[in-house]
């Protein structure tokens, strides 16, 4: 067992304290259901924004597509739990589980095949992936239908609470995984674009998803999603506990990723693509994998979000909304995990909470005037964001001390 660093202990203590106090206040009723919802939304938004910070802040790819993946995660998770609770069927779960597995396996398979062929252009590779994935989906849906009955039976043997929790967790995870798989397919052709063009392309993605969501009942044939009327009847399972657990995991995973050779490779792409590629960094690969990981978090957060209010509406995922995580990331500080988390909570508490209560009755919508003004002032005073690139000691990369003087005396004299 290796020694645990004091920074880690402080971080864990702090996390437990924040969680404990909040939970205690919720139990006491000091935090009422209004504030409780806001805190949960803030936590969800923190996860989305952390994913975006990975893509934009650390990898340097300006993306407006984060809310598209958030929406995918939300609707997928909602559909699974809705079918389980309202229709008492695990059909959504089995089909989507099969789809996630088959598509994932197919992507891996094609990847290893394509990497052997030298000089395959992006578009033909994309066509190959698309065809293979569509095939995998067809097979997966068939298989999912077959597996529906036994899975429903075995899940209903579990006590009701545990069965629901299992379905819920699987639903959230599947939302994340499928969002990640979609982001891989979408990113393949689009990530070859330069930064601004990539931003516009991802904005297009968000708009497409919004239009699809408006027509889920007619175009896609999912009656239960009710298209532009909004999906209702989703069980409200996401408590502060779940939000906290997922947020905590997200922070730790992102921190571990960034403070590794893998993370440094990601950051080098942001710093200078040409220098990175001539230093042996596969720029295209790191752009793709970062985009996929960022979207995975967006999908997970979407799954959590769907179960906060028990209500999903396509308007929550419009492209105007997709600027929210962007504002949070820039406001908190590009390339700062700490800043993103703080800004997410600040954003939700101030915009939805304090301003709504502080403004006189009838003037609530004025918060959308006050809030941009605050942003303006903030950007003028601190253009690098609230935290710049500051990190709390737990997240910050450690610079290891020099071991010993290994300098050969000759060179140090020469060079000095």
């Amino acid at each position: 067992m290796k020694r645990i660093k004091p920074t880690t202990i402080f971080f864990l203590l702090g996390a437990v304290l924040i969680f404990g106090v909040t939970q205690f206040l919720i139990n006491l009723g000091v935090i009422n259901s209004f504030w409780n919802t806001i805190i949960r939304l803030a936590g969800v938004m923190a996860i989305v924004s952390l994913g975006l910070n990975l893509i934009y802040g650390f990898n340097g790819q300006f993306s407006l597509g984060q809310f598209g993946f958030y929406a995918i995660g939300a609707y997928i998770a909602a559909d699974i739990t809705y079918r389980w609770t309202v229709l008492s069927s695990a059909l959504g779960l089995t089909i989507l589980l099969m789809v996630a597995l088959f598509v994932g396996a197919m992507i891996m398979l094609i990847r290893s095949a394509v990497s052997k062929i030298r000089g395959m252009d992006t578009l033909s590779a994309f066509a190959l992936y698309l065809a293979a994935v569509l095939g995998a989906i067809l097979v997966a849906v068939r298989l999912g239908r077959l597996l529906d009955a036994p899975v429903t039976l075995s899940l209903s043997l579990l006590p009701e609470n545990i069965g629901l929790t299992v379905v819920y967790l699987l639903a959230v995870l599947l939302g994340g995984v499928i969002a990640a798989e979609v982001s891989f397919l979408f990113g393949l052709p689009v990530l070859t674009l330069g930064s601004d063009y990539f931003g516009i392309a991802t904005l297009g993605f968000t708009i497409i998803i919004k239009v699809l969501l408006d027509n889920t009942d007619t175009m896609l044939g999912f009656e239960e999603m009710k298209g532009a009327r909004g999906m209702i009847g989703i069980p409200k399972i996401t408590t502060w506990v779940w939000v906290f657990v997922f947020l905590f995991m997200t922070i730790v995973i992102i921190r571990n990723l960034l403070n590794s050779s893998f993370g440094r490779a990601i950051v080098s792409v942001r710093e200078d693509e040409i220098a990175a590629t001539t230093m042996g960094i596969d720029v295209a690969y790191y752009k793709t994998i970062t985009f996929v990981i960022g979207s995975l978090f967006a999908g997970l957060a979407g799954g959590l979000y769907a179960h906060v209010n028990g209500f999903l509406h396509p308007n929550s995922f419009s492209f105007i909304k997709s600027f929210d995580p962007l504002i949070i990331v820039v406001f908190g500080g590009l390339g700062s995990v700490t800043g993103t988390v703080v800004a997410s909570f600040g954003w939700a508490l101030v915009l939805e909470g304090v301003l709504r209560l502080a403004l006189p009755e009838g003037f609530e919508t004025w918060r959308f005037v006050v809030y941009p003004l605050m942003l303006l002032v903030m950007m003028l005073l601190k253009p690098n964001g609230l935290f710049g690139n500051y990190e709390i000691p737990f997240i910050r990369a450690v610079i290891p001390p020099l071991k010993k003087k290994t300098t050969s005396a000759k060179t140090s004299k020469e060079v000095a």
Partner: protein
Amino acid sequence: MANNNGETPILELKKLCRYFGGLKAVHEVDLVLEPHALNGLIGPNGSGKTTIFNVITGIYEPSGGEVIFEDQNIGGLDPFVINQLGIARTFQNIRLFPNLTVLDNVRIAYHPHAGYGMQDAIMRTKLYDQKERELTEKAQEFLSVFNLQDRQAEIARNLPYGEQRRLEIARALASNPKVLLLDEPAAGMNPKEVVTLMELIHFIRDKFDLTVLLIEHQMRVVMGICEKITVMDFGEVIARGTPTEVQKNSRVIEAYLGLGATELSKKYLKEKRQ
């Protein structure tokens, strides 16, 4: 050609061309680098030297001809593949990772040899701890060769110019190359720094068993340390040979000083002798 002692060249350009539309930036250039050589590539501005570097390192695809590295045609491969095969470079206008620490700049170049993956990083496995320690020690070793070890926590963009140049060479070496391409390493350095740089280039070539090809405008550097020099003008090779041979070559003098300069220089030398 230059390969008269029978050694197989480590890097060879065969009729290499690179055109930009109608502009022949590089036209049918032949170049041979023998293992452990320290050669120079000179020529007036715009003669295609940096374009050759860009083609060798894969930033540009060759329009024609071959780049043979260790008996393999690497023309048109991705830059990161070429780097992993063993060719590293520095840039004319320094390209560090400006917002990262000096240590991280070097550690990034070592990434292909890191020896652990994303999963190890997320799970913080034993492999991660061990390899990360190795990698860091290795990077610190590279820094100490360039006397930058005390600067390791500094942000790269805050370093003085000379140290940025040294850091860039250190970073290139950390990617474990066999051939090192230096693009104007002495640009912007004062005379004292230039002398130490020349010694340093000699030193690293012997210590890391490198083959070095350098572009340079400062004749002191080129004439002082290069064993063989290739001179380019308008995308073509106009002369090659040892520094003294090249200095006397009339085409070289004309390329640098203009037509008729050979006569003038002879006259000047005669007057000087009298």
